[in-house]
C-alpha cells in the first residue's frame, strides 16, 4: 500500500515550457538549456535533498545513473563540490529522431570524492576537464538526456 502510493502519479515536476522547434538553432538552444539545468540540479543535490537530476534523463543515460547512484550508496561515498560547464558545443540535430548531439566539457576540479568517514579519496589522476558527448532527444515537449559518452574531442 505504502509502496504503491509512492508510485502513484504525484504532481508532475514543472517542465520548462518548450515550444516545438522550427529551426536547428532553436533545438540546440533548448537542448543546451536542459543540459545546463541538469548540471545545476546535480550541483544543488548537496544542499537540497529534493533535487532530482534524474528527471532530466531517459533511456540509457537513466540506466547508467541509476546503477551509479546505487553503487555510490552501497560504498558510502559522496561527491561534493560543484561541477562547472567550461564549454558546450552543439554538433548536430537529427530531425527524424529529434536528437541533438553536443560536446560538453565539464570542469570537475572543484569536485571531491569523500569516503564514508569523510576522507578525501579523489583520484590524483583525475583530469580537471572531462569531455563528454551528450545526446538529447525531444520527448513530448522537452529534451531529455538519453546518452552521455566519453569523448576524445579536445576541450579548449
Amino acid at each position, binding site marked *: 500500500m505504502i509502496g504503491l502510493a509512492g508510485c502513484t502519479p504525484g504532481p508532475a515536476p514543472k517542465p520548462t515550457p518548450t515550444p516545438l522547434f522550427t529551426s536547428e538553432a532553436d533545438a540546440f538552444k533548448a537542448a543546451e538549456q536542459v543540459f545546463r539545468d541538469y548540471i545545476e540540479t546535480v550541483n544543488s543535490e548537496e544542499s537540497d535533498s529534493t533535487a532530482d537530476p534524474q528527471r532530466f534523463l531517459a533511456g540509457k*543515460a537513466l540506466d547508467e545513473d*541509476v546503477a551509479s547512484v546505487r553503487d555510490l550508496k552501497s560504498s558510502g561515498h559522496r561527491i561534493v563540490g560543484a561541477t562547472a560547464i567550461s564549454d558546450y558545443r552543439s554538433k548536430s540535430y537529427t530531425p527524424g529522431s529529434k536528437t541533438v548531439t553536443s560536446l560538453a566539457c565539464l570542469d570537475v576540479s572543484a569536485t571531491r570524492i569523500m569516503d564514508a568517514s569523510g576522507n578525501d579519496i579523489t583520484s590524483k589522476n583525475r583530469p580537471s576537464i572531462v569531455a563528454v558527448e551528450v545526446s538529447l532527444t525531444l520527448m513530448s515537449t522537452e529534451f531529455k538526456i538519453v546518452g552521455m559518452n566519453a569523448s576524445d574531442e579536445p576541450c579548449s
Partner: protein
Amino acid sequence: MFLKSVGRSVVTAVLAAVALTWLAPCVAGEPLETQDTTPCSIAQIRSGECHTAEAGVGLGDTETTSNDGTGGSDGGGSEDASDPGGGGTAEPTPQEVCAATPGPPSAFCRSLRPVGVAIGQPAPGAPGWSATISDVARFVPSTATVSGEPENIAVVGLPANFLSSAKTETIPGTILGRALTIRFTPVNYAFEYGDGEKRDSSTPGAAWDASGQAQFTPTDTSHVYKEPGTYTVTVTVTYTADIDLGTGWIPINGTLNGPPASQQIRVVKAHTALVQNTCTERPSAPGC
C-alpha cells in the same frame, strides 16, 4: 481519502499486471552492452572514471560487479580494435569495402551503385542476353513483415520501436529461358506510422533487447504517437537486384519496391508502467 487511495492502488495494480506481460524484459536484468562507446554517469564523470576506450582505465560497464563506487582498477572495458584503417598496404577501393561489409549497404555504399528508374540497360558481362529491373520484378521478396514493440502496443508520448523483417534474399528464377539466381538487397525501409508521419531508414530497425537498449529508447525507426487510438504502420522496402548466371553477381540498374507490409498498432495512454528499479531510485520513471 482512504477509499480514493485504495481505488487508485487497485487501478495501479491492474495496470501493473497488464504491463507486466509486455514489460517483462525490462525487469529481467541489465541489457547486454553492444555499443563500442563508453557511457558515463554524472557520478563517473565527476569521479574521473569517464574515459574513452583508448584511455584505457575507464570503469565503463564493468563497474556493476564492484561495490566500490569509485574504484578504478578492475575496468579496462573491451579492447575492440574497430579502427579499419591501419597498416601500410594499399587502401581498398570503396567498392571493395562495401562488398566486404555484411548486411544492408550504407547510404554511401548505395551511392556507388546506380539507383534510379528501371531502364533497359543490358546487364554487363552477358553478351547477347540482358535483363532489366522489370524482368526481375516478379521475383521481388513479398514475405517481409513489420512489427512494433512492445507487442504492437505503444504508449502516447513514448517512443515505440518498429522493425521490418526484410533482409537480403537470394531467389532462384528463370528469365527469358535462362536459369539464374537473383539477389535482392534492401536499401531503404520507408516507415509510415499511420498518423501521417513517415520516416526513411537504411536499416530494418533493431529490437531494443538485441541492440542492448532500454525499452522506450528512441531508435532509428521508432516513432512517438501523440494521440491514443489504433494505427496501421506500413513499411515499404526498396531493393536493389543482382543476378548470377553462374559467373558471379552482376548488378541490375534500378530499384524495386516490395509489396507494403502493415501491422496494426494500439496506442494507449499509460498512467502507470512497470519499470526497472524502484520509484525511489528512479522517481522520473514512467508512472512514478
